[in-house]
């Protein structure tokens, strides 16, 4: 499989030693987009982002321009909140952006603030990213010193402050309303919607919550123009996209591509395919919370709409590749171990359901399951799915539902034989919590 090369705009220089510095960024055209944006009206910027079709890169794929338009412009102050709580298992693209190209995000935050009439952006960064936080804060300092942040930016009269706030390490803090709660100093538990953050968000004020990669796309839309942006990638799936390929591949990593690329090109081309002597068993195309795809679906276009047509979701574009050594019961147990640990504990189905599901999966994997446990798994999952306060419940049951659907025979074999039928030497002996 040939490796398809294309122009990189999000992470073009990440291998350069100084890619994160302001000088490097300026030398490569940095902050030109901000200058351009400040020459236009905020409404023009929103229109431009709308026309670009930029969709949120955090997982839901909601059009960013629409989100900005919905922000209630009658109420002051307003906020841009950057969701940098990258915690979905398999996802590590924002990490790279913030560590190696932080000024792109700073520029995106500033343009975002300008567009919605905010003066403040908060970057809520994952608790474990303390080393990334240093890079970001350094970049922000540099930007202040050079006049790209602070008062009267580039003589335009526009003021903008960017603050980094590091979370305490809860996965749930990546849910936009839980993130807002956490940012306000409360427990990271989701809010009911409505009201949406665009009406009453951070500190009760209109806010736009955008993913890191989304905001990094904004300067690109501004500098390259709508026409270029929409021209790369399929319709309604324009612009550059970062893919995190991990699992049983030869070259795991972050790959930038347009959404014309197929899963096969990513897995077999960019990432070099599965290890020698092994065959592909399944692919999780969008982070641990989306349904798995089977090898015969590998030619699916890796776009929001393409993956959705195939019955899954692009999510955070975290492609987890599983070869034939993977026990699917273990996979589900492993993921539920994560979800039950990270449930915020607010609503009943998720709090109780995930723990129960994990216990059942663990006993099946240990060889202590019963056939009736399979129906019990399905029954619990059915009552969690779609019935929780936020999307966590849906995310948490997906590994169970999707493995039961495609690999029920493996479950049955575990119960029948009273042992794990696919033990693999690379598996951790004991799962440990993420403290």
């Amino acid at each position: 499989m040939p490796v398809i090369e294309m122009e990189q705009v999000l992470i073009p220089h990440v291998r350069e030693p100084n890619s994160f510095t302001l000088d490097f960024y300026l030398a490569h055209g940095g902050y030109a987009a901000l200058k351009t944006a400040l020459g236009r009206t905020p409404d023009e910027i929103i229109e431009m982002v709308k026309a670009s079709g930029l969709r949120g890169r955090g997982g839901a794929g909601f059009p960013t321009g629409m989100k900005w338009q919905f922000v209630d412009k009658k109420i002051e102050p307003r906020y841009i909140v950057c969701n940098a709580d990258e915690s979905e298992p398999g996802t590590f693209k924002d990490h790279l952006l913030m560590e190696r190209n932080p000024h792109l995000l700073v520029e995106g935050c500033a343009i975002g603030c300008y567009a919605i009439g905010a003066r403040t952006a908060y970057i809520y960064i994952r608790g474990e990213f303390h080393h990334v936080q240093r890079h970001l804060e350094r970049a922000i300092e540099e930007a202040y010193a050079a006049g790209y942040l602070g008062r009267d930016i580039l003589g335009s009269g526009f003021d903008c402050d960017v603050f980094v706030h590091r979370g305490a390490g809860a996965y749930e803090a990546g849910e936009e309303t839980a993130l807002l709660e956490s940012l306000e100093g409360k427990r990271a538990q989701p809010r009911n919607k409505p009201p949406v953050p665009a009406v009453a968000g951070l500190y009760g004020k209109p806010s736009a919550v955008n993913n890191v990669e989304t905001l990094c796309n904004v300067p690109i839309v501004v500098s390259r123009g709508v026409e270029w942006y929409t021209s790369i990638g399929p319709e309604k799936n324009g612009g550059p996209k970062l893919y995190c390929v991990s699992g049983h591949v030869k070259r795991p990593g972050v790959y930038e591509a347009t959404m014309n690329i197929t899963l096969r090109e990513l897995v077999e081309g960019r990432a070099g395919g599965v290890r020698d002597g092994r065959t592909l068993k399944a692919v999780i195309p969008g982070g641990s919370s989306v349904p798995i795809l089977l090898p015969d679906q590998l030619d699916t276009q890796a776009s929001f709409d393409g993956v959705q047509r195939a019955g899954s979701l692009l999510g955070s574009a975290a492609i987890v590749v599983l070869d034939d050594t993977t026990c699917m019961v273990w996979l589900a147990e492993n993921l539920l171990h994560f979800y039950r640990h990270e449930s915020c504990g607010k609503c009943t189905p998720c709090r109780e359901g995930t723990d129960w599901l994990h216990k059942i999966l663990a006993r099946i994997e240990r060889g202590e399951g019963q056939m009736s446990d399979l129906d019990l798994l399905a029954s619990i999952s059915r009552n969690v799915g779609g019935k929780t306060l936020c999307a966590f419940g849906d995310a948490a049951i997906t590994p169970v539902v999707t493995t039961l659907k495609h690999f029920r025979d493996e479950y049955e074999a575990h119960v029948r034989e009273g042992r794990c039928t696919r033990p693999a030497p690379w598996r951790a002996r004991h799962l440990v919590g993420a403290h």
Partner: protein
Amino acid sequence: MATIFIDQRSYDVPDGMNLLDASLTLGFNLPYFCWHPALGSVGACRQCAVKQFRDEKDMRGRLVMACMTAAAPNTRISIDDPDAREFRKSVGEWLMVHHPHDCPVCDEGGECHLQDMEVMDQQTYRRYRGLKRTFRNQDLGPFVNHEMNRCIQCYRCVRFYRDYAGGRDFDAFFLRDRVFFGRQSDGVLESPFSGNLVEVCPTGVFTDKTLKLHFTRKWDERTAPSICVHCAAGCNTIAGERYGLLRRIRNRFNGEVNGYFLCDRGRYGYEFVNGPRRVRAPRIAGRADAAAPSDAVARAASPLAGGSGAIGIGSPRASLEANFALRALVGPDRFCSGMGAAEHRLVSEVLRLLQEGPAPAASLHDAAQADAVLVLGEDVTNTAPMLALALRQSVRQQPMKAAAALRIPAWDDTAVRNALQDERGPLYIATVAATPLDDVAAATMHAAPDDLARIGCAIAHALDQAAPSPRGALAADAALVGRIAGALRAAERPLVVAGVSLASQAVLDAAARVAHALHAAGRPVRIALVVPECNSLGAAMLGGCDLDDATALLWPGSPLIVLENDLPRRCGADRAARLFERAGELVVVDHTLTPTAERATIVLPAATFAEGDGTYVNGEGRAQRAFQVFVAGGDVQESWRWLRDLMRASGRGGAAAAWETLDDVTGALARELPAFAAVRDVAPPATFRIAGTRIAREPARYSGRTARDANVTVHEPEPPGDPDSALSFTMEGFQAQPPPAQPPSALIPRFWAPGWNSVQSVNYYQTVVGGPLRGGDPGLRLIEPAAPGAPAAAGRAPSAFEPDDRDWLCVPMYEIFGSEELSALAPSVAALAPRAYVALNDGDLHRAGLREGGDAVVASADGTCRLQVRRVASLPPGVAGIGVGLQGAPWMRLPDRARIHPAERDR
């Protein structure tokens, strides 16, 4: 009104409700956990799921949480839908995954909302096969027991404790199925409303620790509607008894007064009823054993018969009936209200202000609804705790308008709190020292009483130029005074709060001036004036003289009758002793062996609030009836019956001597004193019947009816009759049960509805969920201001307080636990009562050479006393606070000037 469709039938519901409110109001059994009518919706437990349909053609529908969905016109839902039922059942199953199966040994069993909801969900069999998670419990102090293993994580406790009651030392910790509710470490819960956790918790995590000491199931308790006797707020309670022991106090919903909650003094003060200081048989001085009632009455009556000018000293903690009977026995001219001179004058002044107006008295409900509040001089958390809880809600009134503008419904608690953040409406507090309510105030001012009065006058002057302006510098800045006046003037429901706790006429005058000025400006102002005790206002309404006058009136050697009153607490041990020496026979009618009773020649054992019926007038002027719960053992009877017996034995009292029932007493009271004309209608008469029967005090499930006393006698005793009320002492009679029939609201002995064994059953007794009880909330206001209202007080504002070089101005300070006489006798409350203290600010501590925690000698005109030194940084210079009514605190006239110096051993 909005028309909604539930399971294809149409119903009209009031606007602005959510579907859970609406369903419960309509009488549907829809289970829930995290929602609470006073706390609103958060959508956490997912128990109240119903299926909503877009229109009549939509057959699929989707599950929504009833508590989070507005009951908008033409909403179509199904409660009975199989998917909804299955999901609700699965919620029930999840909650039981970790909930222990310990109902038989759990204090909550039999009144557990979780039990009720599991039955409603029809969740019977268990599919979970794993281990249950466990927690380490905490010692939360003498009031609340903690058993976290039972927790179902509904978050109600933390929402009540922090969001509603403003507590800071309790929170939710950790995440997933290990969310823990408690304190950071073991320790006494700091909020004076912590006892409400017991009722807010839907299961047995938080239970009543005092009940544990003498536990009884809800269904085994004989209960009656009662009134709290531990302050003047007049909260409605349910008192429960078994085996002659008062077991506990629970909230009795009254939408106008306490709503869903009680303070800890009210909930836990009851144990004085069971205390070792109780008098259960007549005592005659000099005799070792108890006297026969007839002997005691004959002995006490003999000096009365001579017409030798007996003086009767009534009591603000005794019922109207008891005080009125005493008044009938001795005659109105020789009846004393039982209050010291200063207190009598101030409470009478409060009565005058309420009667003459122009501002009507505010109920606790009014206080919670007020949108601008000025508190002048009163530390309400310690003098009328539930008023403090109401004022905490009042600060939400103005910001709520912003939430409404965002189209956030008032019941959507998360969204409202998110939109409001720290926005608070105007609550201004001017007190001598910092109060626990200060954290929600827009501004606070701390000054000496006269300076507080000057601030009040300045506000009144800013509102109405006709009001006198204080001369000279003010203890608050002029801009703040202007802001306060502006906020009060702009408010839709302004409220002025003051009281008699500082014993300052000037403060009371100033509060009245503010109310008057607001009234003159055409604002619908209300006034809340805090008086000290459960029947202070009632005693004042009966007239009579104060203790000083009574002393002067008492001819040496004449009999003195003291009703439920401990005089050294009112006028000091020395004065009381002089009074006792002057008296001939000292007859004390009381339930507790007070120092006064110990001095008595004859003590007649009176009933407490739980052992006799009585009417009390709260600070709002609302007359409310407390009903007898059980027949006390021994010779205990109501004070008014003892006094009637004295009338009969002495030939005094005229027609009053013929009184047989409580209705006779209230009837006579209503006839004789027009102010009490309505008192007969406070509750239905004893002849009231539902379907020909009385209302049963014992629930239908009361156990051991015939075997209860088998250790004493195997014969089933004849049930006691009740001539005084329409309640029966047994399980025979009408069992409180809505709808369609429920007892009149004043006669609801407990809340229960089919399928609802917990306190949540109150939903079915209300006209709408959270609204008034059907037939109106109990109690009748006896006082409404006369139109058009009295003119403003004449006179000038007091001059500014000048600190003295040598003396301190001692002012009273109150403690929720310890300052009130009866509750301080309850061991749990006593455990939290501080030692008697004198408080000074840092500068004054230094000046007096005192150190915090040491002892000080306070020397005033009334003598010297030794008190523990407390540091209160917010006290103004030259002002010392003296803890009132505390154990070990001798009486001293307050306010007064006193010297303060270190006790010997601290020098």
